[in-house]
């Protein structure tokens, strides 16, 4: 790991956002991960996305489980709320936090071990409940902290460092997310910030469960020939379905595209997702077609990336449960304990 602190000196012409912050104001501590880890690039993309969205750092909560990926919230957004939970249990903690205070932006950061092995059940349930969050899986296909055994997302037939092939079928998290009814499903690659940053921004502006599977090569244990999660493999087999531009309130939307090449989606908060279609005529609003597309292209050995599915008019857990809008901590005793008469009225309604 790096022994020195990152110098506070910054480029004098570094842009500032609407809050007067530079991108560097969204950084955290210096990473202790291996040099070149894909996870650090994802942290960089999260920093960039939050900067571009003018997000006040104290309005964001970052939650994680256990693993290399789950260490990363320390390395970005040093002025945000954070919770490093039990292995695989980040989704429950996030769900609880979200129920208690819906005013924050919730960012769950997890890995393939944390989400596809020990936490697979939690992963599935928080998506189907529509918890309003961004759930990023930093997916490298191996257990990096324990020296590189295949994880549950490693592709069948992928080779480990000594040449041994993975005999088991892979858990494909985006397919699972589609099946679980996630309303925003994307896949990206740590080595492609141009694609990743807009996806994170769009996910943060999405109301509902937004899931991003981000392939993140493990430079120590899974970046060799025969790996399907290496820099080279992902770059060679990357099949991007679209390219995303995100327009938030203060951006001017420019339109100079040919008919039929662009799909525009307006999210509940007014942000506009403009999807430039690449190659095949791909419709990101149709989850059934998306699932079929994912399956067929993955069978052909391609890594499908981009915004796979989005449902513009999504609803979240709070809407379904008709919860109170104010954060629970802002409620006073009178609101929390409406008294015997109110209880009697509820009981009467149930009789």
């Amino acid at each position: 790991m790096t022994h020195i602190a990152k110098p506070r000196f910054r480029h004098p012409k570094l842009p500032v956002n609407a809050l007067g912050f530079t991108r560097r104001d969204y950084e955290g501590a210096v990473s202790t991960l291996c040099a070149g880890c894909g996870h650090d690039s994802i942290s960089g993309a999260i920093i960039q996305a939050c900067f571009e969205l003018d997000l006040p750092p104290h309005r964001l909560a970052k939650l994680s489980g256990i693993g290399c990926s789950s260490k990363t919230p320390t390395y970005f957004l040093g002025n945000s709320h954070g919770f490093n939970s039990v292995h695989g249990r980040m989704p429950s903690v996030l769900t609880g936090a979200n129920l208690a205070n819906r005013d924050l932006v919730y960012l769950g950061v997890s890995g393939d071990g944390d989400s596809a092995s020990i936490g697979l059940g939690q992963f599935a349930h928080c998506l189907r409940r529509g918890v309003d969050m961004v759930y990023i899986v930093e997916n490298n296909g191996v257990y990096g902290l324990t020296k590189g055994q295949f994880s549950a997302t490693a592709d069948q037939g992928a080779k480990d460092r000594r040449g041994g092939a993975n005999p088991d079928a892979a858990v494909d998290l985006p397919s699972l997310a589609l099946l679980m009814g996630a309303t925003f499903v994307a896949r990206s690659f740590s080595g492609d910030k141009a694609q990743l940053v807009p996806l994170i921004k769009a996910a943060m502006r999405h109301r509902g469960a937004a899931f991003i599977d981000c392939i993140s090569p493990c430079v120590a244990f899974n970046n060799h020939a025969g790996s399907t999660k290496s820099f080279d493999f992902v770059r060679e087999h990357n099949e991007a379905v679209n390219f995303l531009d995100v327009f938030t309130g203060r951006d001017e939307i420019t339109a100079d595209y040919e008919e039929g090449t662009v799909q525009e989606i307006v999210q509940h908060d007014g942000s506009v997702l403009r999807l430039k279609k690449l190659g095949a005529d791909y419709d990101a609003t149709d989850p059934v077609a998306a699932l079929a597309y994912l399956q067929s292209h993955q069978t052909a050995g391609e890594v499908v990336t981009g915004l796979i599915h989005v449902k513009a008019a999504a609803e979240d857990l709070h809407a379904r449960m008709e919860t109170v809008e104010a954060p629970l901590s802002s409620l006073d005793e009178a609101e929390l304990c409406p008294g015997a008469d109110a209880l009697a009225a509820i009981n009467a309604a149930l009789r």
Partner: protein
Amino acid sequence: MATFDVPEDEAASSDHPGRAISGPGMAPTDVRDPNYFHKVVDCQWACPAHTPVPEYIRLIAQERYSDAYIVNWRSNVFPGILGRTCDRPCEPACRRGRVEAEPVAICRLKRVAADYKDDIEGRLPRAPEAPNGKRIALVGAGPASLTVARDLAPLGYELVLFDGEAKGGGMIRSQIPRFRLPESVIDEELGYIYGIGGIETRYGERVESLKGLLAEGFDAVFVGTGAPRGRDLDVPGRREAADNIHIGIDWLANVAFGHVDRIGERVIVLGGGNTAMDCCRTARRLGGKEVHVVVRSGFEEMKASPWEKEDAMHEGIPIHNFLTPKAFTHEAGRLTGVLFEKVAPQFDDNGRRRLVPTGEPDLHMPCDDVLVAIGQENAFPWIERDIGLDFDEWDMPKVDSTTHQSTLPGVFFGGDAAFGPKNIIWAVAHGHEAAISIDLHCRGEDISQRPPPLVNLASQKMGLHEWSYDNAISEDQRYQVPWRDQAITLNDVSAEVELGFDRDLAFRETQRCLNCDVQTVFTDSLCIECDACVDICPVDCITFTGNGPEMELRQRLNAPADNPEQDLYVSGELKTGRIMVKDEDICLHCGLCAERCPTGAWDMQKFLLDMAHATDQPACRR
């Protein structure tokens, strides 16, 4: 790295070393061109003598003061003198000044090396027992001639130093006030040169004829006579009030040699250069109670270095600008003051500035004495014009800017005598080049074939994340050199004002140096484009992007690269078809890119460039 066929004239220019022009995009930077990394070391590049500044600053940090002194001595000959008086072109160039408010106090750290060194005489070269039989005359014993002597004496040359004064040093001794430079420092550093051996000093002997000197049978002559004539101001009253109007550099010399120790209570100093600053501060110490500096130009355009102006103002000396002297007023043969016309700058269509009268009433400033410090001129009355040594239209000798040879083979010029008034560090640089020429000339070789510098580029990697240099970045502001109490300094012309850094302050100041000589070296073939360097770089100087023409490329980097003086370090095409572009402008040389690089594509390598000196030429060539 790929090589490109580039027409000779389009290849690496001196402004942009290592850059070739090829097609619509940028060609990979050729870091084998020593000038490329040399230019990244802004201080060394700006220093006329190309002193390896970061190298000696690191040595000071390690308390290796003697080693730091020797590094300086090799390059600039007068570390103790320059550490107090240098015009320090390195400091405005210092990268630190582009990252925060103030550059590293490079000049004053040089003095630290001189102040705290041990006895270094045993480490200095000595003349060989048997001289090589060549005799060289050095006319004028200033910094240029002394540098020539220093470089040639160890090779066995017999050097004869002529000077009209009783002691050597030239303007160092005669023009720089003692409160800035104690005489003991001059004696010490001249002593190191004399100590080499083979140097005869014929001081007190002014050379009156070059023809006569050449007749003495010298193998070569070096002229380092400086710019000895102070410019006069011929306005009404000059002759009548002559007793109280003094030429600045002559007056300073008279003070330095003890001929003058008083001045009137009200003094006006005319001129805005460093000599004017020395004059006013000296006058302040010799009885001047109301000393005023009056300058024709504006404050910003004054030739004096900013710190010299500050030092003068700190001593209660006001500086008045945009005033042109019109006449000296006098009464019964005694100066009563100076009449000034008020002027203002006016710019013509070409942006050239002219000072035009404002039409306001003239200003009369009463005074007892005037010091005229409005410039210096060369004077060569002792050089005959019929000996084959050509002069140009400004009556300056025609001198080759590289070899320093005049049109008379075997006669060389350096310092202010060569190309007009500059400063000590330029004189030293000239002396080095002239010494190389004289050595080649005496050996019968082509003096236009200049020896290349010695260049060394070596990795500083010591461990996984360990470097042999201190890569943590200090966020300290520039430290102020402690001053002696003004109650003492203003009453004693020889009490040195600056006390110099103590060891602790010096250490803290060294930590501000960014180690720009420890270069970020990129190897295309090792890069896997993981972005780790981009993410960690504290100043956003690394970008991976498509190639393009330079000016267009500069606009789409992660942070704008809008300082065209500073180069872009460009890689060859990488696997994804992109290139790596690094803007050298404000790189902190913290090494984090190399620490976070998983493949060693980035490495921190120390670039050491030692200029060729006559002394270092291999013996086998002789």
